[in-house]
């Protein structure tokens, strides 16, 4: 949906960081993307292939690690990661407290060559 805009934000930050590090090129970009961040991997890769041309990232690998929506159920005293459309505890069917919103959109690190 809006992966182009997200990708251009990523490239802005990565190219800036790489330049500051005196890198010749970026070999890998490590992202953390929550399952509920509303970003589709394929669309990110597609946007990356278009927008990275002519930048320090042109040959980099875009690596994506996913995080999940997670809850804590006080009744069962356990954590659970429910399916995306039903966040009740799988055991007692109550709704627990949210512990991780699964909405991460992070640039964790980059690998550069110099």
């Amino acid at each position, binding site marked *: *949906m*809006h992966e182009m*805009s*997200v990708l251009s*934000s*990523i490239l*802005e*930050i*990565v190219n800036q*960081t*790489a330049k500051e*590090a005196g*890198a*010749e090129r970026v*070999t890998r970009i490590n*992202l953390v993307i929550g399952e*509920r*961040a*509303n970003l589709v991997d394929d669309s990110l890769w597609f946007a990356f292939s278009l927008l990275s041309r002519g930048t320090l990232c042109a040959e980099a690998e875009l690596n994506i690690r996913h995080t999940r*929506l997670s809850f804590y159920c006080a009744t069962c005293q356990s954590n659970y990661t429910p399916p995306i*459309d*039903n*966040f009740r505890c799988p055991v007692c069917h109550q*709704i*627990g*407290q*949210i512990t991780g*919103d699964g*909405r991460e*959109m*992070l*640039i*964790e*690190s*980059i*690998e*550069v*060559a*110099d």
Partner: protein
Amino acid sequence: MNTHTVKVVKSILANNDVVAELNRRRLVEAGVVAINLMASPGAGKTSLIIKTLEALRGRARVGVIEGDIAGSIDTEKVLTAGAQDAVQINTGGNCHLEANMIQTALESLDLSQLDLLFVENVGNLVCPTQWALGEQLKLCILSTAEGHDKPVKYPEIFAISDLIVLNKMDLVELVDFDRSFFYDSLKALNPTVPVFEVSCRTGAGIPEFAESLLKYKQARP
């Protein structure tokens, strides 16, 4: 050739957040309370702005930034309803507003003449939640006709909102809106969020909602 890892640990939206923070400071300094209105298309964003304008007429100066895909029809509507000032953002088909769009819109508003500023976001329950604009209040409108399961299906917007308006209460019986299902799931996501049940059609609940915004503003001169 050597390769090495550079730690970044930065939000992808860091640059948007910087601009949002500039907007926020500018609004706070001018004493303007900005409200980011998020909802599905047709939930009643424009209707709520119009009803609130009517309820606050003569008591608060209200500006409106129209970001919903709309042309300028809604801008004219809110000006007729008594808005002090209104600007239309051309979103270019974007699915959400971003902080730099608000920054540009603020250029054409005289903030010294405003108490409240409504920002009507693009009709969408999903991505507007991810882009901070510099608002002080995030307001989510749900209309009863959309169904009581929306907090379960779109948890983040309900989790991050400071205020919830449940609109189209005049239709509550007709559309089998299950209030206890709605409130149970909302409570799990956002235990203390105030909910205003209103009907923009009959005007029910509008005075209470409008008063609460006025009170919020009066606490921040």
